[in-house]
């Protein structure tokens, strides 16, 4: 009851402030205690939990039924795993804002989810305020980066550039500024600190990070398409 009244108050406030952030959230986590804790916190913050799911299968059907604006997904869930769910759902609902949460931080899965179009990644052990802030920023369409994720993405770009050079085609190029920003994120600097160091605005830093993500996702699609064409070409040859 309390949570409900709290929520309506928060909602009313949000409406009064004319806020435009997405509020319909779906949570995917196989641990009930996490679902409960996250639901409470997000509802208290004015979000509306439209669905929860504990397995990949549930996540797919419920997301299709409720069409949430924001999805918070744990990667370690029963079949199909979180990264696969994200890949499938973002193909169907490209506008969905996805934040990845994970307890174990399996690198390849995290990278897969980000390449598929997730907006960001946080470790589950992050303090509640940080988690909440992460969901808020995701809901506003911003990228949420941890130092670990920045390191992963940097590595991935370097790999793609090397590959592109080997194939003699135009690879995904980051500007030197984008690389600089990404490296600072990976070295643990907050956006505010990065902005100070590079003498630019907080928003500019945010935009750089956003661009990096967009390029990564775009190039992922290009790579997939190229791969498909190559496969098709080989099949046609045979």
């Amino acid at each position: 009851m309390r949570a409900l009244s709290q929520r309506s108050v928060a909602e009313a406030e949000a409406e009064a402030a004319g806020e435009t952030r997405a509020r319909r959230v779906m949570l995917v986590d196989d641990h009930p205690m996490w679902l409960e804790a996250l639901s409470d916190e997000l509802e208290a913050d004015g979000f509306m939990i439209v669905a929860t799911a504990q397995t990949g299968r549930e996540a797919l059907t419920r997301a299709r039924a409720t069409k949430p604006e924001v999805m918070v997904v744990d990667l370690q869930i029963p079949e199909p795993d979180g990264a696969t769910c994200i890949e499938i759902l973002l193909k169907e609902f490209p506008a969905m804002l996805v934040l990845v949460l994970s307890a174990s931080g399996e690198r390849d899965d995290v990278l897969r989810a980000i390449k598929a179009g997730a907006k960001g990644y946080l470790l589950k052990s992050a303090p509640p305020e940080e988690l909440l802030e992460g969901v808020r920023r995701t809901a506003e369409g911003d990228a949420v980066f941890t130092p670990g994720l920045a390191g992963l993405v940097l590595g991935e770009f370097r790999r793609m550039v090397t590959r592109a050079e080997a194939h003699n085609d135009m690879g995904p190029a980051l500007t030197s500024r984008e690389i600089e920003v990404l490296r600072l994120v990976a070295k643990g600097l907050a956006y505010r600190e990065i902005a100070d160091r590079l003498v630019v605005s907080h928003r500019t830093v945010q935009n750089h990070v956003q661009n990096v993500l967009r390029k990564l996702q775009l190039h992922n699609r290009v790579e997939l398409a190229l791969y498909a064409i190559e496969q098709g070409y080989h099949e046609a040859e045979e």
Partner: protein
Amino acid sequence: MDLLAPLFRVYAALRVLLAVATVGLNLTRLATVARPGWMVGLTVVVLVWAIVGAVVLLRPSHRRTSTFAVDLGMTVVLALSSVWVIGYAAPPTVVAFSAAATPVGVSLWRGWRWGLGASLCVGLVGAIATWGSAPSTWPRLLVFVGACSSVGLVTSQLRQTLSEREQMYAVAAAMGERQRLARVVHDGVLQVLAMVEREGRSLGPRGTWLAHQAHQQEVALRTLLQDTSIDGPHDIVDETHANLSVLLDRHASVNVTVSTPAGAVLVETQRAREIDAAVSEALTNVARHAGPSAQAWVLLEREGGDILVSIRDNGVGADPQAFDEAVSRGRMGTRQSILGRLRDLGGSATMHTAPGRGVEWEFRVPVEE
């Protein structure tokens, strides 16, 4: 699981082939035997019996002592009938080539000792049935016995190898299953630790302490999991190369965040250890001088043929001049030690610091592919 299935399929074909050859042989000598009518009849029996035996023995449950005893008995009876049907001492017997069928089958089934017994039995009966034949045909008996029983030697060996392989598969499968279960359990533990860490902070000083403990265990377990997953990265890839990612990951703790690319960063083992040692030294310095609440971040990158490692902390920092003065007074500081290590590797290290701004190291080491 029928380990011998492929062998018995070949055996079935061989058995029928031997019978067909026997039919051919018996037809060509039809004119020379005492009772041609009986010869034709018994040759048909040999062929039918060979086919029946081949089909029956395809099934593992039919490979019993009684089956082989009946088969052996039939061969012996047919061989002995030669005395009356052929009527003179000229090998081979009515069963001719098919005489080998039973001993080879027994060899496949029970190994060379049983094969030897069966082939001796069939061979001797054949010798008796064609008693008085020319001495030049006797060595055939020896070849016959040797060939039939040595088939058993091969199958014994094969059977052992196959069962060992089966056992290895079983062990590997069990290990895989254990790994899978361990992942599930570990994930549960990680979830609970993360929860304790989250909620603990709001429960006062004891809760904060609890959260701290939970975080330490969480980091330790996560590092262990990334380190030991069955097909995941290992630090030593082969004799000569190590995965620097995994080496550096070991430094992750409550106060240290390590960021690495996905996939292995292979570096020659000795170089990897040196780089790791330099990182260790920098981090020890953070723990000693940066202040109790300082956090450190390690970033590993690969840029063309170079390895880049950055180590940054948000601690108290230092006046860069203090470092140089320490050196001029003859004290070899950490800084000199790290610079020395990097120089020995043909790389370079730069350091930036200022009071209140933490310390930032950047190592650049060339590595060959």
